[in-house]
């Protein structure tokens, strides 16, 4: 049974895309989390219990606004679960939901097990016996649900990568346990220095996994799109047009690279990071060379690329060169300036765009921008970067598990560095194995002993 003293969170409304989504947080930490992620529009003092408040959901690390939301705060015992509780009603985008849950988890909550809210309500005496029958049915069905979740976790993006990591951790634990338990045996165990090195490698691997984990990255940084094209085709105005639309829920973020302007926007609830590039010039040795290099990097980092061409100018050699450079990449062709006379024949367009989706817009007048946004949204979903929200949440579980894992391993390293003997880092290492076990299945003491006895000849 899960620890009832944890603060838990989950999507409380139905899965899938919808107009609105409700995220529920329950437990002693829920009010503190509210303070950190929910900024009330007007300087409303305190949190009036059980009244609806309008505000912004803010990423606690970046300070950026993720969405506008209404939220309700309940104080124990007057809540569904009988604990302190908050509920946020946000726009119904799977990525937004996942991003919010991610923020809440980063503030000390964990994702709820199926039926856990109801379970708490029941245990806190918020229900009578007839209701309790219903609760039991819910929890009963969770056995099946958990099996599904488990199956999904096994097939999740991380679980395949985590297996070698688990093996290397078991190796470390086996080494250390053997050294502690079998002092009189003449065992070829690793030195502290080697174990420490292995631990650091494991931590690096985990960090890498967290950083590159795609669903995680999309949630954290948004879907990355590079805007490219030869100079003066209207990249910047298109860029601005895309940003302009959603000013109300977009916060500016200064570009991290000097020659790249990167801004966050949100397309139907999905955070998108738009990167305006310096353009692909034909003269790589020119002063613009540096910018071009960055452009190429932006392209290689991007989940999708918007190629902007000027429809009012005859297709040039440069357009074709750009096309050939971007061959095989996920691109969308934006035919800009449809307010002017077209100099691109249908044949030109067909040749240029090929398999890529294409769209005519006027960045200047805003014509077609809404359609472009829909196209981008489709592309985001089609690319597989954003999947169904249950998958996203599964991946979110993986992520919080990896983060907990990293935390324990760092503590293990610290106990080593403090010169403590094996049993101290082992306390953290056993906890880290527990975290891995949430994804890959438990490692029991017996499993470890088996590993020890198969590896070392122990016994006098």
């Amino acid at each position, binding site marked *: 049974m899960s620890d009832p*003293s944890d603060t838990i969170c989950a999507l409380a409304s139905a899965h899938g895309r919808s107009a609105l989504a409700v995220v529920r947080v329950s437990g002693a930490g829920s009010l503190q989390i509210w303070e950190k992620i929910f900024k009330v529009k007007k300087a409303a003092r305190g949190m009036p219990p059980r009244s609806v408040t309008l505000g912004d959901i803010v990423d606690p690390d970046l300070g950026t606004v993720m969405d506008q939301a209404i939220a309700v705060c309940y104080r124990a015992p007057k809540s569904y679960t009988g604990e302190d509780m908050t509920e946020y009603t946000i726009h119904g985008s799977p990525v937004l939901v996942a991003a919010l849950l991610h923020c809440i988890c980063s503030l000390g909550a964990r994702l709820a097990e199926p039926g856990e809210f109801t379970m708490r309500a029941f245990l806190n005496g918020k229900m009578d016996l007839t209701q309790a029958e219903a609760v039991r049915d819910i*929890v*009963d069905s969770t*056995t099946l649900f958990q099996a599904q979740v488990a199956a999904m976790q096994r097939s999740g993006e991380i679980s395949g990568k985590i297996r070698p990591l688990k093996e290397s951790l078991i190796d470390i634990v086996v080494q250390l346990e053997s050294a*502690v338990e079998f*002092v009189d*045996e003449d065992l070829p165990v690793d030195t502290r220095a080697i174990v420490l090195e292995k631990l650091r490698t494991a931590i690096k691997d985990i960090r890498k996994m967290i950083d590159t984990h795609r669903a995680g990255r999309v949630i954290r940084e948004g879907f990355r799109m590079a805007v490219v094209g030869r100079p003066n085709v209207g990249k910047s105005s298109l860029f601005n047009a895309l940003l302009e639309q959603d000013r109300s829920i977009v916060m500016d973020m200064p570009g991290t690279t000097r020659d790249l302007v990167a801004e966050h926007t949100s397309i139907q609830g999905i955070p998108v990071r738009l990167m305006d590039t310096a353009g692909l010039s034909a003269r790589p040795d020119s002063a613009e060379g540096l910018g071009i290099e960055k452009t190429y990097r932006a392209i290689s980092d991007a989940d999708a690329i918007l190629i902007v061409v000027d429809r009012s100018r005859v297709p040039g050699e440069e357009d074709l060169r750009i096309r050939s450079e971007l061959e095989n990449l996920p691109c969308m062709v934006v035919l800009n300036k449809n307010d002017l006379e077209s100099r691109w024949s249908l044949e030109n367009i067909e040749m240029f765009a090929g398999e890529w989706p294409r769209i005519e817009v006027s960045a200047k007048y805003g014509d077609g921008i809404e359609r472009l946004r829909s196209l981008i949204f489709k592309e985001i979903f089609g690319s597989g970067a954003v999947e169904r929200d249950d998958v996203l949440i599964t991946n979110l579980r993986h992520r919080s598990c990896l983060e907990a894992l990293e935390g324990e391993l760092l503590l293990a390293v610290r106990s080593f560095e403090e010169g*403590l003997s094996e*049993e101290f880092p082992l306390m953290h290492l056993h906890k880290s194995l527990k975290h891995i076990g949430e994804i890959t299945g438990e490692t029991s003491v017996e499993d470890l002993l088996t590993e020890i006895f198969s590896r070392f000849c122990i*016994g006098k």
Partner: protein
Amino acid sequence: MDSYDVVVVGGGHAGCEAAVAAARMGVRTALYTFDPDSVAQMSCNPSIGGIAKGHLVRELDALGGIMGEAADRTGIQFRLLNASRGPAVQAPRCQSDKYKYINEIRRILFDQENLSVHQSEVVGLIIEKDRIQGVEVKDGRRIQASTVILTTGTFLNGLIHIGGIRQKAGRIHEPASESLAQNLRRIGFEVGRLKTGTPPRLDGNTIDFTRFEEQRGDDCPAFFSLKTERTILPQISCFLGYTNAKLHNLIRENIKQSALYGGVIKGIGPRYCPSVEDKVIKFSEKERHQLFLEPEGLDTDSIYLNGLSSSMPVEVQKKMVASIPGLENARIIRPGYAIEYDFVQPTELRQTMETKKICGLFHAGQINGTTGYEEAAAQGFVAGINAALQSMGLDPVTFPREESYIGTMVDDLVTRGIDEPYRMFTSRSEFRLLLRIDNADRRLKPTGYRLGLVSETDYVVFKQKYREIDLLRYFLKETRWNTRDAACPALAAKVDVQAIRGLTLEEILRRPGIFLEDLDPFMSFHGRKPSSGEIRKIVEIEIRYQGYIQQQVKDAEKMQSLGKRRIPPDFDYNAVDGLNRETKEKLSRIRPADLAMAGRIPGITPAAVSVINIQLEMRKAKNSRNGRKPEKS
């Protein structure tokens, strides 16, 4: 007809501990054994303690058990293992004079009030309506008993193997218990077969010890019992040597003759105590294995050849021994052998060691699939006190995992069952940093006192000790360092005493390399100088590792909250919807005492535990509703 409150069957380490505990609690106790002259025999190595095992003995000592003091009085070499590591994994071990140990325990048994020792084989259990009534002995007499503790060791259908020779025996040259074994199968217990082995004993006069590396004990021995102050017997050395290629070849050439590899042995052996055949075959890349020569006593020349456990024919064993430098002319007094025996799955037991099927029948020691004298003694103790409590009509006493290795072991056994001989390891405890030898008395002495197994005098000493420690901790926490009160040259040699002004003494003590001793003048000035080295050490441990200790205390509290949700023994798992058939079957068989234990059963998911929890709550709600008068009418 003879009549007792507690009858203990078997005089090994489990049986002796059980009998003495029960008798000391004031109930009429009888111990039946094949041979009262060889009670508490060390059938295998002449040594007690070691990592985790030494912890068990310390815990037993705190509770009022007998193994610790007896081992201290008969120890001929003492070592504190893991002395270079942290306090939680340090543990004492001693080499024992195995004959003096027998004498020591026998003296305790015979001197014990309420306890009678009998030489007789128990051949059957008398059971009526699933309740034990007594036992039947070999000559046909029936002994009445309200509780019976079986501590049969390797005697149940014992079968010894030496090469191709097989012989029914409980130990070499001692008869096996066959009818009792049958009796247990008839009751319907889940019975399995295990195997263990022992190495040859050599005549010390025929050994060239100069070819081995001498291993001495510690100069300052650590004892098992807190009451022990010094060694009684002269101290001896052990000797370390190695196997070699010649020996390995001998084993490979003759492997078919080994009882183990000949396919006749069906029992499962302990992986941590492999025979030398196993070592050579399974770890063929290893060029040599350690061998220890351990004297079996002061008045005997018998040497235990630790590391050469074998079931080869005697002739091969002779060649094997002779292949070792220094043992060329060594004479084998007794060959090594393997032994198979029956055990009863410990999932048949409650946390009290009482069987679930037969009320009043308890199992302890190797019958439960464990190995080791210490493991046996600890179970014997738990069975002994609970048999006594039951015969007095009192509530049982159990030991939570977070409080002791004893409790961890019992819980492992009754929750998970065993599929190979079970030995204690510190890694079996999720609270390793809490279960230390230094605080065994703090953890368990109050329980021992409550049971009447710790004397008033001992308890007063114990309470004074921890009163001083607690006061000292308070002083160190609240007092800030200054340079006025008393100069501390030892401290000044390690840190800048000006720079640490204003820090609490506790903060100073948390710095690496600083000990309470360094603060002695300051402590004396305040009248707080610790009265003993032991107290210093405990205080230092508690302060230095406070962060770690607190984390584990928190983990333990989490477990306790689930552990408080008891599951009634008559709980009907089959009536719970939402549990699959396998889960229902498993839970019905093991009958966990509480939700925490339910969650520890292999294969029981958190969801299943939640389902049971809801069922329990509903039951509670129903009961309270039925019990209450309707408020509205």
